[in-house]
């Protein structure tokens, strides 16, 4: 098989060499013609030299038939030979030979005077460049009168026939302001970069586009919005910036996986993540799902960690990237934007593009920043006096008297201690970052090199145990040939990340009079707990159970491109992606109660995920009639492999030994492995008629090795139209002049999803029945047994997503105020999941397509306005809004599946079913619930919500109803201020759902102030009791435990000040900037807790204060 790839590359290289030779400047010409039309002769010359001829057909016809013979002669000689007996003469302009009548007027220097004679024969030649003189390859040049256009060649040159003296040309290029130019024979056109958001370059699938011309739903976040946030994981910087994109950190640890969901939940399978396809500089990121800690919908993908155990439950690959190396992150949301990714695009696509060098002086940028992370707030919990009051009342209610057995916190321990465990266990953390970037280059070659070092901490009590370090380097190099036709670009990023974490042991609910964590000798204080015979409840063990992990991420890519003729480009891109993770999670002897003579144990994990990717591509753009046709055809070959090795080493007799597996008396290892290959051919055809009507058809045929024989290949496609109504003359007349854009989009298409577990179609045998390790089976008759580990289904196929998207764009006041509104309906059918089978078939489930059909419908709004634009002061504002409604549309046979107990047809997948809470019974002081079936019992039943015997009938959808962000950017001279607000409308679990009075469970002060004490009391909280009865225990499963958790938050504020040039020069630098930034500034919410994003007891998200100094040299 690899032979085929080599052959493919070989063919491609041959092709490149072939076209390269052909492009050489005027090689010697050998021709021989007798009585041939001049045009034929010219064709032969062109073939041999690559020279283009530019002529009026009548002129060339007037030369009649000619005879010519030449051997290895240069161009001029051959032309002389051809033309000496004809009325035709020539002139050479650059790479083009222009043929005219000899009678044409000449300038005094002997060249042809284009202004009259030739020009009247309708020809114009010009060059388009940008302000820096870089020639723009592929710029559009349109004669406004005839609406006919062409594109510039690699050198930015164009030649137009049919131009008339009084014509005006419209010259435009993506990302630049269009320019109207009166026709002249020789034109040097310089385009300025646009300031209009609608015309800014946006990355799309395998190319670029603009908001104005895009049919697909594309949102792009650029460097300036990523840099202003003091986050270490660039994906977290997307939070609130992209309508339709929901970003949720899964744990409080900085390297933890991030749950990313675009336009709602597609899969009913709780084991399936909502992760989109990530592409970094053209290379797809590998996300596998093997190993002990499994990925899932709630927890996201475990990322680089594919083996072992960590308390951050995985390692986000993006935590290994430097946010400052990112030029843009583009989110492709609908089928029109993602169809070319076929079966991988079902959850959307996120494209990360890294920064590249720019021609000019070599620039050095150095920055250092320092942050302090503090918890956002503390819960107002009982102090010792109040806590003991609660405990005594609870004991009384239960008819108990305080004794060492019933209440060591009263009878045994020091009741004068009063510890605020939140302050004790949630210490502030410091982060330091230093970065250096070097960039620059010539017209032909540019480069950028950057490095970053971060030393950070997570919020926790033991700082020395909790220091994380990361280092990143990025490198990019771009080169193009002198004639601009040949381009090569190379880039690589590498990130190293080491974390050392511990868990805090549940700070907020610990009793305030607990004995100290450590004893006099610095060991965990088990003695005070053992004295009460409750040594096994000691809460601080986790402080000495470190979870250590180090990860590496390498992403590298190479792209070679060549322009064969104007508008026709071929390229091949190749990339490699490598992720490594080593972790250990140690239960030290010191963390365990010495009473039980513990031994140490440790999980060790080693993971490696790597993959390569090859993408050949050809694209062609030209004007046909009044429209511009762009055709793209490409392929993709992708291979990815994940290895995991998890070892449980146990029986350590000393904590010093736990650093290595070698020192363990007992080990138990398991190996995980998966490989998958993907191949596709994708293409798109886009026809843009006068920037008024745009039609696009794109598609993908792909195959994945994750499917069984005969099921590997699938086809996906989309068709979309765009109507820029404001370009219609009749509408322009009607519309007020301040309306600058009216555009409508519609598209419909399919994408897919495939399982991220390979080999399910194969019968697999293993030495342990769970397959991924577990305890190996014992030998039988001295033979190591092998058993089948899963049922075999060779027939499962893609999950199919069908998406309809409609959108409207409005622009006002010369596009200073823009609105983009979209409505979508996405249906995901043939859901891949574990289908239940009767156990008599051998297994309880089989991988297959279930009949579940899930629908997401939603509305997204994105408003951008440059409200004030003065010389000194600008104010720009962005407001976005997302509403998504999830619905299980249909699921025939749901009653035969495990989903019957959690999902209901017609409802959201994220809906949960709850008892109806009736409040505290004034007579008994116990919580009471609605007994719908009046059977006198409140039991969950083993059926399904709403069925007989099951009183869970209240449905609550935990997905946000809508979320919205408002970003304001103010600039005054050298000052900048950016503020990002977010608003989320949602329901979440209330901050307190427990039972008050239980040993070592502290409660909020509000509970003490409002609880049941005697029959007849009307209270919010039930009677105090030392053991949670079942009636109290059901509370968290009732609607009483859920509350409005909507909030308005000032997500971040970034203030910047750039030092004046003069001052900068005084201190010997080119520029200097100071940034002061805050994250999580304040939150307004009716939610009774301190962080409506996280349930009670969890460590709240930190408030970050950050200062950064950046110098450029």
């Amino acid at each position, binding site marked *: 098989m690899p032979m085929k790839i080599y052959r*493919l590359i070989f063919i491609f290289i041959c092709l490149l060499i072939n076209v390269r030779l052909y492009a050489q400047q005027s090689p010697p010409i050998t021709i021989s013609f007798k009585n041939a039309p001049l045009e034929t002769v010219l064709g032969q010359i062109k073939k041999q030299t690559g020279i283009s001829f530019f002529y009026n057909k009548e002129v060339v016809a007037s030369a009649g038939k000619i005879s010519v013979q030449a051997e290895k002669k240069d161009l001029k000689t051959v032309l002389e030979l051809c033309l000496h007996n004809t009325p035709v003469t020539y002139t050479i302009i650059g790479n083009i030979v222009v043929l005219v009548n000899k009678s044409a007027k000449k300038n005094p220097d002997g060249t042809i005077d284009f202004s009259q004679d030739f020009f009247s024969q309708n020809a114009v030649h010009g060059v388009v460049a940008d302000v820096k003189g870089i020639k723009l390859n592929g710029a559009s040049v349109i004669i406004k009168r005839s609406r006919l256009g062409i594109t510039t060649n690699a050198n930015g040159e164009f030649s137009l026939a049919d131009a008339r003296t009084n014509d005006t040309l419209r010259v435009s290029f993506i990302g630049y302001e269009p320019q109207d130019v009166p026709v002249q024979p020789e034109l040097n056109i310089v385009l300025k970069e646009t300031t209009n958001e609608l015309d800014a370059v946006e990355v799309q699938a395998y190319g670029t586009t603009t908001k104005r011309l895009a049919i697909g739903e594309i949102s792009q976040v650029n460097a300036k919005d990523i840099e202003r946030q003091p986050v270490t994981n660039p994906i977290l910087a997307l939070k609130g910036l992209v309508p339709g994109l929901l970003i949720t950190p899964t744990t409080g640890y900085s390297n933890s996986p991030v749950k990313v969901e675009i336009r709602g939940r597609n899969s009913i399978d709780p084991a399936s993540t909502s992760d989109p396809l990530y592409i970094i500089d053209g290379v797809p990121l590998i996300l596998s799902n093997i190993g002990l800690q499994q990925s899932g919908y709630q927890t996201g993908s475990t990322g680089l960690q594919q083996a072992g155990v960590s308390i951050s439950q995985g390692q986000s690959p993006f935590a290994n990237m430097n946010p400052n190396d990112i030029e843009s992150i583009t989110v492709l949301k609908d089928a029109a934007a993602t169809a070319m990714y076929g079966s991988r695009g079902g959850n959307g696509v996120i494209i990360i593009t890294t920064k590249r060098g720019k021609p000019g002086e070599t620039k050095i940028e150095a920055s250092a920043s320092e942050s302090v992370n503090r918890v956002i707030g503390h819960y107002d919990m009982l102090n010792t006096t109040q806590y003991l009051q609660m405990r005594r009342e609870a004991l009384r209610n239960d008819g108990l008297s305080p004794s060492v057995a019933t209440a060591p916190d009263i009878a045994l321990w020091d009741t004068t201690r009063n510890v605020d465990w939140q302050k004790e266990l949630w210490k502030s953390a410091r982060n330091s970052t230093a970065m250096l970037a070097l960039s620059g280059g010539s017209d032909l070659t540019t480069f950028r090199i950057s490095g970053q070092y971060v030393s950070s901490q997570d919020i926790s009590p033991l700082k020395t145990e909790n220091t994380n370090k990361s280092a990143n380097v990025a490198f990019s190099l771009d080169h193009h040939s002198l004639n601009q036709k040949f381009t090569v670009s190379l880039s690589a990023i590498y990130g190293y990340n080491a974390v050392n974490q511990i868990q805090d042991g549940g700070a907020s609910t610990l009793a305030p009079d607990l004995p100290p964590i450590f004893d006099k000798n610095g060991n965990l204080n088990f003695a005070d707990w053992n004295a009460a015979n409750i040594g096994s409840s000691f809460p601080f063990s986790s402080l000495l159970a470190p979870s250590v992990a180090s990860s590496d991420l390498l992403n590298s890519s190479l792209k070679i491109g060549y322009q064969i003729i104007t508008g026709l480009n071929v390229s091949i891109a190749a990339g490699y992606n490598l992720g490594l993770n080593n972790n250990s999670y140690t239960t030290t002897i010191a963390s365990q109660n010495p009473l039980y003579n513990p031994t140490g144990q440790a999980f060790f994990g080693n993971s490696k995920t790597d993959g390569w990717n090859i993408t050949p591509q050809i694209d062609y753009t030209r004007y046909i009639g009044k429209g511009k046709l762009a055709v793209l055809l490409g392929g993709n070959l992708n291979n990815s492999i994940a290895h995991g090795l998890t070892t449980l080493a146990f029986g350590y007799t000393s904590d010093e030994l736990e650093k290595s597996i070698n020192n363990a008396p007992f080990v138990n290892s398991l190996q995980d492995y998966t490989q998958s290959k993907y191949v596709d051919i994708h293409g798109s055809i886009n026809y843009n008629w006068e920037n008024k009507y745009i039609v696009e058809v794109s598609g993908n045929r792909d195959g994945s090795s994750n499917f069984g024989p005969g099921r590997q290949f699938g086809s996906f496609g989309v068709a979309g139209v765009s109507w820029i109504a404001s370009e219609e003359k009749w509408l322009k007349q009607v519309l007020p002049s301040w309306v600058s854009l009216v555009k409508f989009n519609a598209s419909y298409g399919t994408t897919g999803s495939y399982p991220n577990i390979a080999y399910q179609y194969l019968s697999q045998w293993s030495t342990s029945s769970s397959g991924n390790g577990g305890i190996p089976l014992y030998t*039988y008759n001295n033979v190591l047994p092998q058993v089948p580990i899963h049922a075999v289904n060779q027939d499962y196929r893609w999950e199919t997503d069908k998406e309809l998207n409609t959108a409207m764009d409005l622009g006002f006041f010369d596009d200073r105020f823009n609105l983009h509104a979209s409505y979508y309906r996405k249906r995901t059918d043939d859901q891949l999941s574990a289908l239940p*089978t*009767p*156990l008599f*078939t051998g297994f309880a489930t089989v991988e297959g397509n279930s009949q579940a059909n899930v629908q997401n419908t939603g509305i997204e709004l994105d408003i951008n306005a440059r409200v004030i634009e003065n010389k000194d002061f600008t104010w720009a504002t962005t407001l976005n809004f997302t509403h998504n409604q999830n619905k299980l549309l249909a699921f025939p046979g749901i009653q*035969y*599946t495990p989903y019957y107990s959690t999902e209901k047809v017609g409802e959201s997948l994220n809906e949960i079913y709850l008892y109806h809470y009736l409040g505290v019974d004034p007579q008994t002081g116990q919580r009471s619930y609605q007994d719908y079936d009046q059977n006198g019992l409140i039991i969950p039943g083993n059926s399904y919500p709403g069925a007989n015997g099951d009183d869970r009938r209240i449905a609550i959808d935990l997905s946000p109803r809508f979320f919205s962000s408002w970003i304001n950017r103010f600039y005054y001279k050298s000052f900048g201020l950016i503020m990002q607000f977010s608003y989320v409308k949602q329901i979440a679990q209330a901050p307190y759902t427990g039972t008050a009075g239980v040993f070592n469970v502290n409660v909020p002060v509000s509970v003490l102030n409002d609880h049941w004490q005697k029959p007849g009391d009307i209270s919010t909280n039930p009677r105090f009791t030392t053991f949670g009865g079942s009636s109290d225990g059901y509370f968290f499963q009732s609607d009483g435990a859920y509350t409005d958790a909507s909030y308005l938050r000032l997500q971040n504020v970034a203030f910047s000040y750039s030092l004046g040039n003069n001052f900068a020069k005084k201190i010997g630098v080119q520029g200097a900037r100071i940034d002061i930034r805050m994250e999580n500034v304040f939150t307004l919410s009716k939610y009774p807790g301190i962080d409506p994003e996280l349930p009670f007891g969890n460590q709240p998200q930190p408030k970050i204060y950050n200062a950064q100094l950046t110098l450029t040299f």
Partner: protein
Amino acid sequence: MKIHGFKTNIFWLLCFFACAGQMACKKLIAIDEPINTLTTTEIFSTDATATSAMAGVYSTMINGTNGGLAVNSYGSEFSAGSTTLLGSLSSDDIYFFTAVSNSVPDVFGTNHLTAQNAGASSAVWNSAYSAIYKSNSVIEGIAASKSAALHDNVRTELTAEAKFIRAFCYFYLTNFFGDVPMALTVDFNQTANQPRMPQQQVYQQIIADLKDAQASLAADYSAGSGERIIPNKWAATLLLARVYLYAGSYADAATQATSIINNNALFGLETDLGNVFSTTSREAVWQLKQTSTDPNLKNATPEGIMFGVTTTDHHGYPQYCLTDQLLAAFEPGDRRRTVWVDSTDHPNYPPAGMAYVPHKYIIDAANADAGQPVPQYYMVLRMAEAYLIRAEANADNPTGDAAASVADLNVIRTRAGLSNLDAGLSGQALKHAVARERQVEFFAEWGHRWFDLKRTGQAHAVLSVIPMKQQWAGDYQLLYPIPQTEITVDHFLKQNPGY
């Protein structure tokens, strides 16, 4: 304006993409086999790996899938104690002393099963069908294998072993549950949506499989290097004899039993009852060899752990005790009552702080010791049953030889230290003697008593009057309920009536 040379380029590029397109065939996405697991093709490519697949069947049957965790209070494998426990509870062998009302063993002991509380019977169902799946994998894997390195003798041997195991599993399934679905392939498409097959059809399949196994399996114990741990021709013969007996084919049953009894070279009754379950027992026809490296099981058998008195000083507190009905069935002087029964004097037990437990396996939780020799394997089939099968075939048969029947019974009685029966015994009395002999010989062993009571029609008369089983819930209890989850997933399955 004309663009010269364009067509040539396009041609080349189309060629390139045609190449790419053509190569975008299956081969481009062909991947290597996984390295951490083996595929069916790989497993059945050599003698050694194919043998490991069959070892997987035996190992999970006796050791479960999760190490020593299989040895919990009521077992998770029908073939590692579960059948014995549930069959003994449901009949009148043992009772659950530490009975918590509605707990799993309690509902079996009182015959108050419902579709919801019979979780332990699901373990029988699940583990038996799991062994059937593995056996089907072996049968189909070998048939599909084209490997020359998988030799014919191994193919024949392993296929026959797998068929024996399949028959063995279906025997217990149909006796516990009645009509059961029959999965004879690993293809879930063919098996998933099937109704229950009539018991008669299940027996036909069992007999067919056993005949195949009998014809192909070795007549010696070479497969286990002399240990009787891999089923052979005689294991198939004894099970076939039992199946014929259950099906009422007495002549066939007697013929099969005779062929074992006559094989003096391999088999004979152990005169010392303490040796019957030993690893070297001449009475053993098939034993499952439990692991001796499990930290919980150590050198004990699953049943030893389950039934032991829990302390070496015999003051322990075992969960399962022999019933008064069983203890009363022993004649005075029966050595089985002393050798195969242990006791504890824990004060909690009535009437005088004395309780009796099965003690066929001498290593229990109290005296199990890791690293020590393993004195006993888990006995599945033993030749004493051949005598009792022939005795019953002759007794319950109008054309049978009553004298021969008594003679066979006396062989067993003599070994137990009992006097011979009256040579003139016949008719109902003889049948009764056979039943009683089976009761005391096979108590707490593989559900014999439960199946015997059911197939001889005595279950109602015997069980419905036992005080512990009041109120007698009804004879529908004689079949266990089909696991509810199975019916949920396969709606062609119908629950046993009464549940």
